[in-house]
C-alpha cells in the first residue's frame, strides 16, 4: 500500500509540474507580451510589480525557473487590473467562499445521490427506480447555469421565496447549492445504482443472506461499502466539475468567491490572475485526486502493488 501511495504521489507531482509548465509556455506564447500592458489605465507601479515578480528582463529559462520557484512558495504574483492587489490577496479572499459553496455542494450531492441510487437499486425496475433514473438523466442533461437561471426566475423573481444574489445568509446559499449539486447528484445516483445492482448479485451477499442477516444489515454492512468504491474513485473528477461550476454559479448569483474573480480576469485578460488561479486550482484538484487514492486504499484492503490506480 505504501508503495502504491508513493507512486500516486509521484504522479501527482508530475501532473502539477505539467500544468505549471503548460501555463508558463502558453502565457509566453501570447503575441506581444501579456505582462507589458498597453492599457493606459495600468499604472507604472503595476508594471514595476510585474517586472519585479516575473523578472521580464531575464532570459526565458531563468524566468521559467523563477516561475516554478514562486509557485513552490505559493506566491502567485500581482494583478494587472487591480494594482494594489496580488493574486494571493484575491485567493485568500475568494477561495474560502468558493470552498464553502463547494463543500456544501459535494456533501449534499453525496448524501442525496447515494440515497437515490441505493433506493433505485433496491427497488430495481420498480417505480422508484424509474423516477430516480429519469430525474438523474435530466439532472445530467440540464447545464447548471441554465438551472441556476430558472431557479432565480421561479423562486426569487416569481415566488419571491429566496433571495436572488450574494452570499450573506443560509437562505442565500440554497439556490446556488441546488444549482451546483444537481448534476453531481445525478452522476452519483446513477453510479451508485449500477454498482449496487452489481454488488447485490455477488456471492458474498448470498452468503450474508444465507446467514440469516436482516436486509438492512446486508445492505448497509455488506453491500453499501463495496458499492461505494466506484463513487469514491470519481470523487476527484466530481470536485473538479463542481469547482469549474462555481465559475458560472458565482457569477450568476453574484457570490464574491474565487470563481467570480477568475471569470472577471478572463474577461479583462488579466493574465497573471488567470495563470495564478489556474495553477492554484489545478494543484488543488490534482491533490484531491491523490487524496481520493489515499481514501480508496484505506477502504479497500485488497489494494496493493498490482492495482494500477486511476482507472
Amino acid at each position, binding site marked *: 500500500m505504501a508503495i502504491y501511495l508513493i507512486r500516486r504521489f509521484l504522479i501527482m507531482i508530475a501532473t502539477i509540474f505539467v500544468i505549471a509548465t503548460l501555463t508558463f509556455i502558453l502565457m509566453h506564447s501570447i503575441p506581444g507580451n501579456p505582462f507589458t500592458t498597453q492599457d493606459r489605465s495600468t499604472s507604472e507601479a503595476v508594471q514595476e510589480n510585474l517586472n519585479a515578480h516575473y523578472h521580464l528582463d531575464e532570459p526565458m529559462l531563468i524566468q521559467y525557473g523563477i516561475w516554478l520557484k514562486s509557485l513552490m512558495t505559493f506566491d502567485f504574483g500581482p494583478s494587472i487590473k487591480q494594482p494594489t492587489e496580488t493574486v494571493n490577496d484575491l485567493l485568500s479572499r475568494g477561495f474560502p467562499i468558493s470552498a464553502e459553496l463547494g463543500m456544501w455542494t459535494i456533501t449534499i450531492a453525496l448524501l442525496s445521490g447515494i440515497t437515490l441510487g441505493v433506493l433505485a437499486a433496491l427497488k430495481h425496475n420498480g417505480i422508484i427506480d424509474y423516477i430516480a433514473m429519469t430525474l438523474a438523466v435530466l439532472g445530467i442533461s440540464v447545464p447548471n447555469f441554465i438551472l441556476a437561471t430558472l431557479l432565480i426566475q421561479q423562486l426569487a423573481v416569481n415566488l419571491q421565496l429566496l433571495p436572488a444574489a450574494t452570499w450573506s445568509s443560509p437562505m442565500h446559499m440554497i439556490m446556488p447549492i441546488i444549482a451546483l449539486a444537481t448534476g453531481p447528484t445525478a452522476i452519483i445516483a446513477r453510479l451508485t445504482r449500477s454498482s449496487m445492482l452489481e454488488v447485490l448479485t*455477488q*456471492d*458474498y451477499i*448470498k*452468503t*450474508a*443472506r*444465507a*446467514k*440469516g*442477516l*436482516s436486509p438492512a*444489515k446486508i445492505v448497509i*454492512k*455488506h453491500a453499501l*461499502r*463495496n458499492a461505494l468504491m466506484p463513487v469514491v474513485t470519481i470523487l476527484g473528477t466530481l470536485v473538479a466539475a463542481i469547482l469549474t461550476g462555481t465559475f458560472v454559479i458565482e457569477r450568476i448569483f453574484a457570490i464574491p468567491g474565487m470563481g467570480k474573480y477568475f471569470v472577471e480576469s478572463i474577461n479583462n485578460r488579466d493574465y497573471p490572475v488567470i495563470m495564478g488561479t489556474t495553477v492554484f486550482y489545478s494543484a488543488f484538484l490534482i491533490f484531491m485526486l491523490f487524496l481520493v487514492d489515499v481514501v480508496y486504499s484505506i*477502504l*479497500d*484492503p*485488497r489494494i496493493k502493488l498490482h492495482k494500477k490506480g486511476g482507472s
Partner: protein
Amino acid sequence: MEKILEIDDLHVHFTTYGGTVQAVRGVSLYLNKGETLAIVGESGSGKSVTSNSIMQLIPSPPGKIVKGSIRFKGRDLVRTSKKEMRAIRGVDISMIFQDPMTALNPTLTVGDQLTEGLKQHTSISTDSAKQKAIDMLRLVGITDPESRFKQYPHQFSGGMRQRIVIAMALICEPDLLIADEPTTALDVTIQAQIMELFSEIQEKTGVSIILVTHDLGVVARVADRVAVMYGGKIVETGDKDAIFYNPQHPYTVGLLHSVPRLDMQEAVLQPIDGTPPDLFAPPQGCPFTARCAHAMQVCANVYPPATNLSASHQVECWLQDARANRAASLMKR
C-alpha cells in the same frame, strides 16, 4: 430413521422477458438425519434452484415457488414468513456456495464475517463469539487461527477460504448443511481435502448434508444417497451403491460413462451427446428423450411413472415398463 427434510412436488418458475422458465418441475426428495444426500446433474438441471428453494433464497422476482412443500423438522418452509425464515437461516440450515473467492466479503475481516451470524442469532458476547470463531477455524484446519481471525479474505488461498466458508456455515451448529458445488472452483488436491473435511465434520457434529454437484467423483467419496436430476426432475434416486453399480436410467448411465473411473477396465470416456432441454418449453414426455439412445415413441409423449426397484431405489423411465424392449443392454448403450 428420522427424516429431517422432506420436499414434496416442488415446482419453481422464473419469469423473464423471454417467457417462463420451468426450472424445477415436481421434485420430491427426503433427507435422513445425519446422512449425506448428493443431488447430481448438469448445469441447468434445476439442482441449484432446488437447494436454493430450501433456503428460500430464490431471487423473487423473477423466481417463484408455484407449487409444493418443503418440510424441515415438521415445518413447511415454503409457507414460513420472511422473518421466521431469517431465524432459520444460518441457525438451523446453513449454505455454502460454489466459489470461495467471491463468497467472502473482500472489505470485512474474516473474523467479522465469522461472528456476525452468531451475534445476529444469539445474545453472545463479543469475546465468546470470537473464541467460538477461533475454535471453528481450528476445527476446519486453519493454523494459527488467533492471528488469521483479524485478516482479510484476500490474504487466504482458495482452499483456505473454502475452509473459512465452511467454518462460517457451521458456527451456529446447524442441523442441515447445503453445499452447492463446494469444490468446483478448487484444485483437485484441495478438492479431496475439502471433501475429507466434510466427512470429518459430519462425524464430529452429526450434521445432515445436501451436496449439490455435477462431479460424480465427489459423490462417490462422501454421499450416502444420490438423486439424479435432469430437466427439472429427479429421474433416479437411490443409495450410492445402487446408483453406481445398478443404474437404471439411461441418463444416470450416461453420467457414469462420462466420468473417468479407476475400477472400470475399458477406460473409454463417453460424453452424452446433445444439449439439455429448453426449459422455456419443456418437453411433454421425458426430458431426456432427445438425447436418449433407447428413446421410444412413448418417451416423447408421456412422462414415465416412478418405478420402485427397492425401498430406496426409484427410477422414472419407460424402459421399466413391461412392454418396452429391454433386450438392448443399458450398460452397452
